[in-house]
């Protein structure tokens, strides 16, 4: 289980990006974090990844505190961030340097086939389309079999068709080993398609505003009325989170911890 306990982040320039964010995410859960710009969702993800340290509060994975990148936590960024000097296969195997070459090759080959790019093994990253490159990034993050996979707006740079395809594909890959997925997005559709639970954050400073359980079986029909209902409730919550006059509904705030800003 991944536990976030009152995680706060204040940048050196005094901007408070994240204020006392607490959440518990169980193993295998798919969690979407959604919110307006500047609500600290990327900051939160970077703290969980161990790329940035929280100013206060703790991130613990299976009771192990996370302060730096951890083997059990993988991350996929908005851009594929492939290493341009490595072939597609070597990019996927980048995190497997400690394995014997034969085992590494076998895992890479399996991952390549799994993301449907077996014929691109020896291609350079520059020869891939945006969607293909992001598939390679997903394979690279998944191949060391992390317990937690973080995704920072992973499909936002892709066209609508490719995005849908990759969302379905991600769920398909997730089903193999069922890692915990934490997905930061600003796409309501994406959050409702993928997540078991949607956390809505509100900006300045970033904090938890609302959470919505998506009680829908998978695969989800994007056109069903129930799907539309969940989308509407997330949208409503998102709208309210941006309204300054609405008080926090943050359940984790105990009495006496009300924030004065």
């Amino acid at each position, binding site marked *: 289980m991944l536990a976030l306990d009152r995680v706060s982040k204040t940048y050196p320039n005094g901007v408070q990006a994240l204020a006392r964010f607490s959440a518990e995410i169980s193993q295998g859960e798919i969690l979407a974090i959604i919110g307006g710009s500047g609500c600290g969702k990327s900051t939160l993800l970077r703290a969980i990844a161990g790329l940035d340290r929280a100013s206060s509060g703790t991130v613990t994975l299976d009771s192990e505190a996370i302060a730096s990148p951890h083997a059990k936590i993988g991350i996929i960024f908005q851009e594929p*961030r492939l290493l341009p000097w490595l072939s597609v296969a070597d990019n996927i195997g980048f995190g497997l*340097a400690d394995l014997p070459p034969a085992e590494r090759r076998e895992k890479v080959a399996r991952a390549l086939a799994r993301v*449907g790019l077996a014929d691109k093994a020896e291609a350079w990253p*520059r020869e891939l*389309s945006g969607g293909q490159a992001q598939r390679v990034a997903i394979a690279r993050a998944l191949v060391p079999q992390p317990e937690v996979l973080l995704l920072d707006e992973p499909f936002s740079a892709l066209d609508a068709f490719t995005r849908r395809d990759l969302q*379905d*594909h991600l*769920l*398909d890959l997730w089903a193999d080993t069922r890692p915990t997925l934490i997905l930061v997005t600003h796409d309501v559709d994406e959050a409702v398609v993928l997540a078991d639970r949607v956390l809505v954050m509100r900006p300045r400073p970033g904090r938890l505003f609302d959470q919505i359980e998506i009680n829908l079986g998978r*695969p989800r029909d994007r056109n069903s009325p129930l799907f539309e209902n969940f989308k509407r409730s997330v949208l409503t919550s998102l709208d309210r989170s941006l309204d300054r006059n609405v008080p926090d509904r943050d359940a984790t705030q105990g009495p006496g911890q009300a924030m004065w800003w």
Partner: protein
Amino acid sequence: MISDAPVLQQSSEPAERAAAPTRLSRYARPMLGLLLPLALALGWELVVWRGWSNGRLVPPPSRVFATIADLARSGELVRHIAATLWRVGLGFAFGVVAGTVLGAISGYWSLARRLLDPTVQALRAIPSLAWVPLFILWLGIFETSKIALIAAGVFFPVYLGVMGAILSVDRKIVEVGRTFRLSGFAMIRRILLPAVLPAYVVSLRVGLGLGWMFVVAAELIGASEGLGYLLLDGQQLGKPAQIMAAIVIFAILGKLTDWLIELAAMPFLRWQDAFGRAKET
């Protein structure tokens, strides 16, 4: 929907590589570059042959090549080329090592950059030829001062190139290394070195160019052998063909050594998505 997702392919496949160039264009294209110099040389040859000019101060190509052949036959040419190559090679090696080490330190470690870089930049502002009298006083008139001068010329572009390249490594790529928990050494080997390599090769080529420039300066100052000596000797004894011969050999050697660097780097830079590459294929 889930099960067939991986079969779905992207809508926008990258364009297939251009068809391999035909045999003719592959050989013909580099030849285009030879057209202008060949035409000029033949034209001048013709002018002198017809007697429109005596070609005393500007000897025609035939006379230049005859001089080169004479020098080669007497064994002089090999001796001069060897001396010059030796100086350039040694000076280049020292300059590259110093430039790479200091450039890497300044690029990687910001405290060192603050301490070191202003001094290096100040030294860089001094025209390198201004060091010549000092180097001669310190290191003598013979080889050491010449090699030091060449090394100084090579040092600055390499230093700047390495430092700049390290500073401009994409933070996002470095972050990928961090998420895979690369240690300091692995980060250098697997992320920084390959990222820096293209700019490093360019700085080596610039450095080598300056090396050739400074070897002439060094040899003009005082040498008993070397291509620069041939230049000076040709001037003092009024042998323009010999000067031209030395210049031609400089051009050939400079181009050849530059091409060697390019050739050595090619296997490591195949991945580059360069403008020039796209045009050539």
